């Protein structure tokens, strides 16, 4: 079984701060990490490798620097890493990204595709389902557990708002995984040494045989109209009062607004 995991390198959004003077994001010094939902997917793939002898291939789309992150995945035990990188892919929305990834997946071949549910920089959760659609194969999103693989059938648990579903799907299928479904393994010392010698396969636009109108900004139906940092709302009244007066004023306000009822 050939498992392909889609992985994105993202800025650690919990470390991002806004420069209040300029109203822009402070990106300097913000570490790049492997997107958490994707890392959970890598771990699931490595578990299947151990139990079924599957091979694990990583595919990532991003700038050339992302190859450092991919080397780290070799140290966790994956078999092959492919980085899709080209200036022509810049500005891609999820529609164009999924077209690009699908072209790479067609070229690689696959039995099972795992993608993280969503990336912490964009939070769209769209690339997994859209890649499945481009490939014409089924999907199961919000996967919380991979229970078994029997022949060409995979059984997973999906987490919904009010219930969980045990789902059977025929391979090939795209699963999207949730961080928290497992504890990703650490890098292995021997593998870290070995990973130094492993190469990341780099594919550019010319390697994918895809129409230029389907990638990058040109292939993206959504366009960014404008960006801003924070809706400044509410004219706050701030009080510094002794605790008992604070309590009185809050209760009095709630009473006036009819938020205290008998």
């Amino acid at each position, binding site marked *: 079984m050939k498992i392909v995991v889609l992985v994105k390198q993202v800025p650690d*959004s919990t470390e991002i701060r806004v420069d209040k003077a300029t109203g822009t994001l402070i990106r300097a010094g913000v570490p790049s990490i492997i997107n958490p939902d994707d890392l959970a997917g890598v771990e699931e793939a490595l578990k299947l490798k151990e139990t079924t002898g599957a091979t694990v291939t990583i595919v990532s789309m991003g700038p050339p620097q992302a190859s450092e992150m991919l080397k780290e995945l070799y140290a966790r035990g994956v078999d092959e890493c492919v980085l899709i990188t080209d200036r022509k892919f810049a500005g891609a929305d999820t*529609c164009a990204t999924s077209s690009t990834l699908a072209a790479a997946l067609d070229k690689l071949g696959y039995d099972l595709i795992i993608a993280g549910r969503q990336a912490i920089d964009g939070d*769209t959760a769209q690339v997994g389902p859209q890649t*499945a659609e481009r490939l014409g194969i089924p999907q199961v999103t919000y996967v919380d557990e991979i229970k078994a693989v029997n022949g060409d059938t995979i059984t997973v648990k999906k987490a*919904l708002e009010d219930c969980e*579903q045990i789902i059977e799907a025929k391979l090939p299928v795209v699963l999207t995984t949730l961080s928290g479904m497992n504890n990703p393994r650490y890098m292995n010392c021997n593998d870290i040494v070995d990973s130094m010698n492993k190469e990341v396969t780099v594919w550019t636009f010319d390697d994918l045989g895809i129409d230029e109108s389907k990638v990058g900004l040109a292939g993206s139906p959504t366009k960014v109209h404008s960006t801003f940092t924070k809706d400044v709302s509410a004219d706050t009244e*701030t009080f510094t009062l002794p605790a008992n007066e*604070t*309590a009185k004023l809050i209760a009095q306000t709630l009473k006036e607004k009819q938020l205290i009822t008998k």
Partner: protein
Amino acid sequence: MAKFEGYKDIYVFVEQKNGEIANVGYELISEARKLVASIPHMNYSVVGILLGHNIKDKAQDVIAHGADRVVVVDHELLKDYSTQFYTDALTQVINEFKPDSLLTGATVLGRDLAPRVAARINAGLTADATKIEMDPEKQDEALLLVTRPTFGGNLFGTIICPDTRPQMATIRPNVFAMDAPDASRSGEVVEFQPDFKDTDAKVVVKEVIEKVIEGVDITKCDILVGAGRGAENCLDMVKAVAAELGGEMCCTRAVIDDGFADKELQVGQTGKTVRPSLYIACGISGACQHVAGMDKSDMIIAINRDPQAEIFSVSNMGFIGNVEEILPLLKDEIIAAKKA
């Protein structure tokens, strides 16, 4: 006008489960009503799309909540949600009726369905919108300006789809307010029969395990008292104040991660979005990830020791002080106010 020949009206995918319609569909219909009212010269309607089996009698509910028309797709393959059959049916509805825009709830179901449909028809889809307006400069195109948070809520982007139709967006539950239904409203019900090329299900649900939700659903509470890390030592008091107000406690991610409360109570980007009448933020610093889940509350009162806390910038009233000291006194004041 000829740019998108035949595309008209704002459509809302109305999610249902076992015949019960999720509120988010009605929230989106209420918002769609405001959008069409902002471009009266275009004469746009609000149209609900209802997929399911034996659900035709629900169409009147959708009209009562503000739809001018409801497209009902009733088929046994649509009884329970399936990515495959719902994508086939919804895509055919779009191709037949040509919506100018299509709004879908950003639920687990909506986030499974909408991207798949958008990819099939190569339409632009914006995820998790928090604000939707008509571009005042492109009124004759009914161009939507769709705003959404990114980078964990640190940055907001306004997204447009200038060259494709329908303009698609998903919106999380509770982001928009739901108007009260009007049972006397009338509207048109249109039935549509899809043509499923392949009726063999590729993905099968073998078993459903109902989740036992401990406590209450905070998204349905009218009063919430939120606890942040600064209130971790007095969570019982937070609960007591909430109880006196007839509300519930909710928490920031930090409190959940520290193991003090259940994930079901988490408000914020990776938790739930709430919009109660009153939100009292106790010891909450106001990280944008949390604020993204509660800043639509009608009234926000914040209590925090740190005068620089970000929470004050989204609050209507801010109190600089120690929650551990203030909350017991507040509880007594509320009890006294009830008696008065």
